[in-house]
């Protein structure tokens, strides 16, 4: 039974991948929409990162876009500096993820001592600092473009890269969450004092969750940079952190399925409304969408999935 759930999910994933790929190649799906699909995948990766931090480890972060940006700028810097060639994408993406994880580790040591709202404010402050650094980055590295934005990034991100990245992120988070280390993170969320009392080094696991989540944000940022080929500090400000937070809360804290669905729904809906709505009320798009949020929160305060998962994302209990 459970094997079948996994097999069906695998077939479904391959089918989705193939359909979008073929539709993209045959121009059934225009390049604009293909880009939207890729962006949905990128938001999924970033959202899964924040879900580890907030949904599973219980650490409230409002600075997710900063790590997304660090990954984006790092990866873009590498591919732009290296004499072109698609072969640089993978190392650049990994470097972006590592850079974001490393910064998360350094910043996490002092601030993860804070709790809930206070941690939120501290990460918010960190996000603003990073944004200001991006704004002035050209003073140190002219390649990064500062407040004029970074141009000339090779367009290397493809649907395949995004898809593989997203599936990899899902597997990573799922396997992590259902392991002893993941349980340690969850125990920190549930009750920090009790977690310490049963022998969990809470500082260590808060840091681990934060670093892993931010590294995923960095990976997503790298993909983003090579999708749109243009980076601007405005793309990594506080509001972008809120977008990810929204996706995670909307999907359900501590639910991988929820993040996937919410990230895709959020991205596609925002663009879909553009197509569906008549031009006269197109501007109301930005009213309709917050209204939807309010309705969802009223009807499902724990998010769409409320901590539940699709069956194929649950671990198989073996005897």
């Amino acid at each position, binding site marked *: 039974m459970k094997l079948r759930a996994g097999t069906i999910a695998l077939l479904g994933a391959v089918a989705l991948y193939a359909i979008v790929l073929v539709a993209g190649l045959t121009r059934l799906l225009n390049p604009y929409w293909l880009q939207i699909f890729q962006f949905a995948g990128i938001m999924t990766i970033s959202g899964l990162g924040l879900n580890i931090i907030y949904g599973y480890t219980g650490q409230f972060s409002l600075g997710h876009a900063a790590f997304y940006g660090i990954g984006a700028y790092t990866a873009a810097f590498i591919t732009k500096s290296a004499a072109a060639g698609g072969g640089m994408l993978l190392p650049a993406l990994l470097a972006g993820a590592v850079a974001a994880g490393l910064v998360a580790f350094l910043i996490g040591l002092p601030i993860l001592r804070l709790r809930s709202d206070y941690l939120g404010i501290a990460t918010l402050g960190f996000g603003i600092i990073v944004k200001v650094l991006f704004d002035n980055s050209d003073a140190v590295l002219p390649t990064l473009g500062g407040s004029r934005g970074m141009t000339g990034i090779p367009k290397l991100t493809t649907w395949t890269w995004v898809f593989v990245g997203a599936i990899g992120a899902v597997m990573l988070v799922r396997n*992590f969450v259902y392991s002893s280390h993941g349980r*340690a993170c969850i125990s920190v969320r*549930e009750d920090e004092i009790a977690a310490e009392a049963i022998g969990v080094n*809470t500082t260590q696991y808060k840091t681990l969750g934060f670093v892993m989540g931010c590294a995923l944000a960095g990976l997503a940022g790298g993909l983003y940079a090579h999708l749109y080929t243009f980076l601007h500090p405005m793309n990594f400000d506080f509001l972008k952190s809120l977008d990810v937070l929204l996706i995670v809360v909307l999907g359900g804290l501590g639910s991988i399925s929820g993040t996937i669905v919410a990230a895709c729904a959020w991205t596609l809906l925002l663009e879909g409304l553009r197509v569906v709505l008549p031009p006269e009320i197109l501007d109301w798009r930005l009213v309709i969408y917050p209204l939807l949020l309010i309705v969802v929160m009223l009807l499902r305060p724990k998010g769409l999935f409320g901590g539940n998962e699709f069956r194929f994302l649950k671990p198989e209990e073996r005897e």
Partner: protein
Amino acid sequence: MSALLEIRDLTKDFGGLRAVAHFQLELAPGELVGLIGPNGAGKTTVFNLITGMIPPTTGTIRIAGEDLVGYPPHRITHRGIARTFQNIRLFNDLTVLDNVRIAYHPYAGYGLAEGILRLPRFHHREREIAAEARELLGIFGLADREAELARNLPYGDQRRLEIVRALAARPKLLLLDEPAAGMNPGEIQKLMELIHFIRDRFSLTLLLIEHQMRFVMSICERLVVMDFGEIIAEGNCREIQANPKVIEAYLGKGVHTGGGGPAPAGSR
């Protein structure tokens, strides 16, 4: 040196309030000792000091000869001390089984990468951990509730689950903070049998705080009585029951002390 736990001159000040004063205690391996006293006497503070939840002002706490003062709580747990809490602290949104499994974390026996890559050792160890956790749950009659969320358990089961979780951390010394609180007489009777059973089965040393005197008197071999942060009496149940200082602490001294009312709060 034969003592498992050795506490010397332990003092804790909260600002101007001396919550624990010159506390001394030695526990031999296998002992079952009760820590009693009126509300606010400092009993739970002693537990918090032993487990490293709060740092002592002065004093030493040794387990098997090793000084624990200054260790973070999780390291103290690794040294063999586990506890339960007066106001139950379960992982409410997790299943009963997961509550217990988490406590095996220090003994997981596989690394982060092994877990994420799902290498054979992961599967092997997870199977063992689940089996051990289920065995413990079985001892406490919780086996058939393993899939339920901890928050949905009845009160008595929650208390028992907390003991199971503490046991999973493989303690040498188990500290129970009011294990019988809120239980009915039948449950208390069962709890007493269980405590004796786990002591023998896991060769535990137990220190427990309890207000239900019938329970304390029938289970503990030795009692330590605290009042206003100090030990006022020590001995077996008969001695304690006859001790005038203990009677005074609980019932007051009559005319001029004005009732010996316990200090409010501060016990936690």
